[in-house]
């Protein structure tokens, strides 16, 4: 009988426990990133690790994203299992050449001889008025690259377990974590550990409308679902979790059941994850559709500094409720 007790924990704490477990179970695993050691991590996720594991396994790196991400890839080539922390996805643009031209491509160019078992963690998303250069949502860009597995930790359970499974993968995995969730508390089973990184997950069963989302969209959609339930609308919530390769099956089965889809994401609307999901629904579940697929995405503007504008630039809980009502009432 699994242990039924649960644990009230912040998203940050869940990330920390996951990484701690990884460092203990495999001595080839080491963490490298800006301010991960002495500073305890830009978001205090690796606080105390330097004291516990020492400089050799908790490496502070200079501000050379291309350099240290490339070095992480090199170390993975030569037998180590590095966790490369890029402080935020906003700084990862400098390391894209290493990530795309080396990590994602070496297996193919070498005709299958060379594996790159590197895990790259990046804090992402919007929140706390960090303005345009510090509030990017680059999931769609990374999800476009064959050779990279892209996962999005939208819940505490995934924050706790995705890293462990990613470290088993022979291929490069990029994990998106979210600043806006760090301080949020939630219940998770105290026995929770590694989780799969292949499938989407139905976070709430429902029959009237399928809401497909990822990242911070998950908890917002769940909150919206409670409000909708009180007006008799039963929505199904799909947490994509894996943005490449995408789990078509879960999506198609849900559409076949509800016949209506609302997609929610914070990234900019054009050429986004929602664009890809809509294409796949059109290709595989066209005859299950009773209405056009709707979507709520980031407004196409560099994220503004003032709070009221920042909040208006991405879908909020109430937007999800309003859209769902419009789609159902219309029926």
């Amino acid at each position: 009988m699994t242990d039924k007790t649960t644990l009230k924990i912040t998203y940050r704490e869940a990330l920390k426990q996951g990484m701690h477990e990884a460092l203990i179970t495999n001595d080839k695993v080491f963490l490298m990133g800006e301010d991960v050691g002495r500073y305890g991590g830009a978001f205090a996720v690796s606080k105390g690790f330097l004291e516990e594991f020492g400089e050799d396994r908790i490496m502070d790196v200079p501000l050379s994203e291309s350099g240290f991400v490339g070095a992480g890839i090199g170390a993975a080539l030569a037998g180590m299992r590095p966790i490369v922390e890029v402080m935020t996805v906003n700084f990862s643009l400098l390391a894209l050449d290493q990530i795309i031209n080396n990590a994602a491509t070496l297996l193919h160019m070498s005709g299958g001889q060379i594996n790159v078992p590197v895990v790259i963690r990046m804090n992402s998303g919007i929140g706390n008025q960090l303005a345009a250069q510090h509030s990017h949502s680059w999931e769609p860009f990374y999800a476009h690259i064959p050779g990279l597995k892209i996962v999005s930790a939208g819940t505490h359970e995934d924050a706790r377990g995705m890293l462990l499974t990613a470290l088993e993968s022979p291929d490069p995995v990029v994990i998106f974590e979210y600043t806006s969730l760090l301080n949020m508390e939630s219940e998770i089973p105290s026995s929770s550990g590694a989780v799969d990184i292949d499938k989407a997950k139905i976070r709430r069963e429902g029959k009237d409308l399928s809401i497909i989302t990822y990242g911070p969209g998950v908890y917002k959609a769940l909150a919206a679902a409670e409000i909708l339930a009180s007006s008799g609308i039963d929505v199904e919530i799909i947490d994509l979790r894996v943005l490449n390769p995408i789990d078509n099956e879960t999506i198609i089965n849900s559409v076949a059941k509800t016949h209506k889809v609302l997609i929610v994401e914070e990234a900019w609307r054009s050429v986004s994850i929602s664009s890809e999901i809509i294409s796949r629904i059109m290709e595989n579940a066209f005859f299950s559709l009773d209405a056009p697929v709707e979507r709520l995405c980031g407004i196409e503007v560099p994220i503004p500094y003032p709070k009221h504008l920042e909040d208006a630039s991405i879908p909020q809980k109430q937007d999800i409720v309003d859209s769902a009502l419009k789609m159902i009432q219309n029926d």
Partner: protein
Amino acid sequence: MIEFTMPSLGADMEDGTLVEWRVKSGDFVKRGDIIADVDTQKGLIEIEVFDEGTINELIVKEGEKVPVGTVMAIIIPVGEKVSAKKKSRIKKEPIKEMVKEGSIKVDDRLKVSPLAKKIAEEKGIDLSAIKGSGPEGSIIKKDIDLAAAKKAESHVEVTGGKKEIAAKGLRTAIASAMSKSNREIPHFYLETRIDMTKALNWLREWNKERELKDRLLAVVLLIKATAKAIKEVPSVNAFWENGLQLKNAINIGFAVSLRKGGVVIPAIPEADKKSLNQLMDLLNDLIPRARALQLRSSELSESTITISNIGEGSTDKVFGVIYPPQVAILGFGNIVEEAWAEDGKLSARPVVHVTLAADHRAIDGYLGSRFLMALKRNLQKPEAL
């Protein structure tokens, strides 16, 4: 001898202009020597030769622009025979154009959700009669469910009409097949008269010894005789679809006329392999179902040749119109008493007029008449059918 050709220096190099030869015929060159200057989009490039020998002939003149691969000079190799290796160009597959241009055009067609359209088709609901309540006035599942429910209640008075609908459908189907046949198939007609005395006598004897339900009708003999004749002249049992395609199975389409008009043609599969009793059982099954319009579409589509047999009620002769893509149709008239002259004597005999309408693209007169003669012979030996 060796052909010195315009070299390819890059995948995007189409041609080159010979600016200057560094050698003249009679000169000896060795591997790596620069023998010409060629101008390209990238600028002037020195061209080296990879073979040894004496320049025999400079074909391309200075200032001339030639595509990659053009023979520019002939070199006679030193002593040993150098086999002029055949230049195999790697075939460049065109990169399949995957992108489908989506054109945004304002679509004023009926707006129906894919789900609604699918259910409407399954339940045979006419979309044009429904008002849509979905987005932009589109018809959605709810509207179809409503329409289907209304239809169920009024099921009673609708069934009568079902036959009308089916009959109306049948009429249009026959009309289109017939006009296609006339438009495309060059018909020619052959006719003969067959003495049915032996056949009918045999039939009477046969039926006498059997119970009522096992009695055979004359038409069964006609079908079996036709099947046997086809084995002798197979080209009547074929399709014409840009060229003659002989059919090995002999599926005889048997025209069943409906009292209210229209004709349905169930196929008797492999008639040649069926006994007379089996053929009779088939007719007992097919004809009533044909008249009630309950034949499956597969039963209607496999005939390789058709027999037309206007209910023996009226005309003596019937000239058929071929059902495409078949190439022949056999018409049996009524069996009537007629004068029959034979060996100088005149007598009254039961006679059937048989016509063959055939597609001149597939069959010609000689084969058509050989087929009818075979049919005549078969009916003279009913016991062998």
